[in-house]
């Protein structure tokens, strides 16, 4: 089968299977097996088959393109391999493909290998076309493989973790008004229903071939996140956290809508890649408009944006052109002026706004600096949700979108992204140092690692950022699932109550150790390392490479990245030591702790293997699988063209990411990253491992800083003061306006209406009723007077008849006589 049909089909099946599972569970969930147990199996098998399809697609991809990145100029076909559904368009398509191919081999040939086409047109409103389409390149395939694999592991894990929901549940965290704890039915099927919906939405987000479809699925994952955070909806904290996540995400999405408007308003398309329409013409997508292949994929402000920005001049020409009556004269005049306007930087701001707008959405979804507050609270959801939605996949969707949209980001936008990522990275890492809730430590760690990814993308490390996204997904979901296993065993989230659990739960303990080693980037420098070693190195190397061309910004990013590595190592091992090492702090909890069931720890082992190995690249000299690795896979999807230099910020220059692989950057970066991580690890060991220093003493010494960190930099309080309180205040004002003015008006109206009605009532009662009653009285008295005639005497009646008849005859006689 041709790759251009095989990939969309396989990934499409993987995408739609969870939707089928969701639909079935919605309809028949509670009736599936005992207490809805079948719903869990259904959802798990759906994602399992999805994983099989996705990995098949990955194998097909490797089988077709090999493991190594494309050599420049080697095979530059398969660009926008638009499928031809109708026989008659096939010929035209082949022609177009040849033409494109010729153009590429003549000029630049680094176009990414991507397949894109419309599957279904939902609607066309003027030039606004809303379609379901796909855009599949190596990144898509890699994301599918990652999401479905982790999704499968987590579904299996959840079968064990959620078993409490199989029977009636007494929620000890909810006290009702009568002092009783809440007693409710189990919601096993509902959990898997939302998990299936989430998998469908997440895969749809990755599958999507246009930004509008991305946005739809973006919102769908958001609502799934809302449902799943609020799974224990009766708990006040859970419903608050769900609302917070949803509202904070709306703020980001508002920016995204602005970005979408800027893009569509000026470019007239939502599609990423070039799509052949029904007439056989190629509609240019966003990427090829922003990075024209004819121009060597250099960042160019598209004609549409130039025209939109120079609207004054366009209007002038359109209405006052001397040869206005000649058709197309004004249009060609405008067309000829566009290069001049582009020189004058018309439209560049629009490009920046579009980029920053799209990034705003990513800030919300990926919990970046101003909007990071929702993610730690989202830990109210069940732990499998935290592992799948809030660490591995959904929050990474923001990073994914930045990566997907990378070609359309101007250097200034990238700088914004880098700063956001850097701030987030540092801020979240410091908070994680003092947090004691095991899941919150991991949540802040997630925020911090997402900051790493954004930083990497922002300094031009496209592959580095997405590489870290993929490796992080594995080790962070592993860490979350381990923490879930610990919570499952101890029934508490508080690390100060744990300790020494390694003996009780060896599988969990050792797999979590692997996760910790992976996240801090442990390894033997230049020889081998856990997955985080490679991805973090790539980021630090790119930051170093960036700082060489931009000393001012770059050094900030470089030191943040390196410092972040140290803090990460510190808090991760603090977590591990506090949980698994040392003496048990709470004997009651320790006695009752137990290893989790097999269905829970086996996925941990699978993920631990991936977390350890997914970063490695098989050396080239190995036969058959030489070059197999995530990095090489991502290189195959690298957007064409250089990031280039800043236009608005002179002096901002982005180095090529390949430069970071050079020896004099790579070696010091590795050493920096490794030594700082080692430092953090040793510090944690000194404090929490061998306990040479007492953390409590240090806490006393740095009390203000400690307070600042334990208060989470007081962001919640700040937002409370800045936004929530004013909001309440305005709401209060509006409420009193409502109560006084509007309610008063309505009350008065009601009073007057009542008065009017009482007058009307009088009229009704005395005038209308009076007339009717009068008529009735007359008829009554008439009847009464007539009843005397009815005597009941038969003979009298006969007499009357006779007399009447005779009288009638006499009358007629007299009348006819005249």
């Amino acid at each position, binding site marked *: 089968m041709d790759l251009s049909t095989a990939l969309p089909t396989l990934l499409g099946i993987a995408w739609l299977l969870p939707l089928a599972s969701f639909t079935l569970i919605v309809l028949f969930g509670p009736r599936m097996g005992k207490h809805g147990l079948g719903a869990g199996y259904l959802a798990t098998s759906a994602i399992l088959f999805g994983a099989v399809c996705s990995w098949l697609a990955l194998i097909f991809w490797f089988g077709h393109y090999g493991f190594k990145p494309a050599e420049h100029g080697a095979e530059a076909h398969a660009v926008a391999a638009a499928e031809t559904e109708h026989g008659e368009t096939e010929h035209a398509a082949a022609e177009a493909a040849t033409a494109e191919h010729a153009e590429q081999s003549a000029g630049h040939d680094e176009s990414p290998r991507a397949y894109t086409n419309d599957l279904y047109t939902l609607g066309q409103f003027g030039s606004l076309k809303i379609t379901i389409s796909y855009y599949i390149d190596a990144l898509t395939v890699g994301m599918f493989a990652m999401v479905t694999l982790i999704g499968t592991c987590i579904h299996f894990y959840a079968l064990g973790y959620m078993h409490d929901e199989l029977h009636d549940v007494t929620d000890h965290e909810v006290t009702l008004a009568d002092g009783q704890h809440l007693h409710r039915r189990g919601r096993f099927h509902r959990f898997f229903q939302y998990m299936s919906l989430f998998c469908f939405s997440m895969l749809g987000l990755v599958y999507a071939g246009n930004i509008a479809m991305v946005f739809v699925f973006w919102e769908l994952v958001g609502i799934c996140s809302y449902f799943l955070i609020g799974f224990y909806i009766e708990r006040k904290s859970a419903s608050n956290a769900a609302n917070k996540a949803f509202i904070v995400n709306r703020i980001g999405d508002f920016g995204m809508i602005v970005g979408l408007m800027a893009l569509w308003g000026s470019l007239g398309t939502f599609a990423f890649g070039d799509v052949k329409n029904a007439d056989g013409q190629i509609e240019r997508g966003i990427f090829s408009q922003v990075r024209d292949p004819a121009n060597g994929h250099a960042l160019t402000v598209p004609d549409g944006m130039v025209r939109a920005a120079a609207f004054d001049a366009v209007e002038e020409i359109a209405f006052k052109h001397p040869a206005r009556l000649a058709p197309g004269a004004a249009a060609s005049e405008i067309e000829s002026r566009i290069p001049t306007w582009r020189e004058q930087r018309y439209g560049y701001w629009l490009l920046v706004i579009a980029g920053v707008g799209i990034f705003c959405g990513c800030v919300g979804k990926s919990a970046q600096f101003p909007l990071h507050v929702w993610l730690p609270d989202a830990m109210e959801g069940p732990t499998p949700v935290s592992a799948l939605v809030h660490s591995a996949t959904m929050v990474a969707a923001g990073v994914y979108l930045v990566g997907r949209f990378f070609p359309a980001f101007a250097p200034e936008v990238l700088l914004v992204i880098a700063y956001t990522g850097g701030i987030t990275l540092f801020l979240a890492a410091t908070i994680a140092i003092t947090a004691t809730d095991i899941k919150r430590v991991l949540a802040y760690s997630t925020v911090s690692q997402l900051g790493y990814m954004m930083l990497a993308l922002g300094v031009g490390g496209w592959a580095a950022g997405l590489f870290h996204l993929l490796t992080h997904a594995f080790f962070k979901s592993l860490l979350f699932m381990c923490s879930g296993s610990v919570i499952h065993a101890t029934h508490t989230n508080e690390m100060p109550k744990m300790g020494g659990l390694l003996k009780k739960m060896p599988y969990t303990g050792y797999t979590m150790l692997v996760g910790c080693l992976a996240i801090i980037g442990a390894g033997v420098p230049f020889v081998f390392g856990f997955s985080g070693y490679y991805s973090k190195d790539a980021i630090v190397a790119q930051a170093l490479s960036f700082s060489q061309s931009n000393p001012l910004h770059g050094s900030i990013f470089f030191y943040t990245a390196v410092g972040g590595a140290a803090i990460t190592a510190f808090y991760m091992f603090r977590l591990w030591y506090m949980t698994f090492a040392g003496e048990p702090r709470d004997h009651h909890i320790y006695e009752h702790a137990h290893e989790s069931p097999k269905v829970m720890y086996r996925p941990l082992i699978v993920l631990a293997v991936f977390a350890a190995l997914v970063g490695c690249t098989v050396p080239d000299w190995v036969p058959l699988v030489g070059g197999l690795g995530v990095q090489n896979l991502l290189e195959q999807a690298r957007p064409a063209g250089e990031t280039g230099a800043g236009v608005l910020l002179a002096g901002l220059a982005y180095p090529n990411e390949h430069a970071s692989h050079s020896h004099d950057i790579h070696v010091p970066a590795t050493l920096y990253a490794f030594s700082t991580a080692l430092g953090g690890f040793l510090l944690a060991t000194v404090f929490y491992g061998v306990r040479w220093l007492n953390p409590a003493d240090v806490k006393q010494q740095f009390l203000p800083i400690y307070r600042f960190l334990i208060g989470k930099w007081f962001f919640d309080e700040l937002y409370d003061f800045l936004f929530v309180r004013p909001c309440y205040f305005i709401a209060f004002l509006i409420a009193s306006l409502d109560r006084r003015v509007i309610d008063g008006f309505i009350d008065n109206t009601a009073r007057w209406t009542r008065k009017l009605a009482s007058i009307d009532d009088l009229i009704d009662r005395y005038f209308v009723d009076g007339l009717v009653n009068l008529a009735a009285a007359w008829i009554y008295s008439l009847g009464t007077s007539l*009843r005397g005639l*009815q*005597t*009941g005497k*038969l*003979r009298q009646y006969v007499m009357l008849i006779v007399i009447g008849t005779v009288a009638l005859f006499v009358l007629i006689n007299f009348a006819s006589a005249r």
Partner: protein
Amino acid sequence: MEPVGISHFMAVGAIMFVCGVVSMATKRNALGVLMGVELVLNGANVNFVALSSKFLTTAPGRSLGLDGQFIALFVIVLAAAEAAVALAITLNFYNNHSTVDVDRADELKG
């Protein structure tokens, strides 16, 4: 001496009619009243038959055919039905009141 003509028949019919009416108006016994009714009806029948008889009309071609006779037959049938119903009512009345005095039957008075 005048031959028997239409007016003689009509005189008989009129006498029967008046007898019947007087009987209805004066009898207190319900059976007497019923007899009066029969007389009235048959008085009318005599008129019908006489007026349509082809032997009694003087002007040829102005005969009514058998119309009068048929109407008389209808009246007889009707009278029989009416008498049956009336006798049933009377019998019921007698069962309830132990009398057939029509002056006592004044329950429907106004």
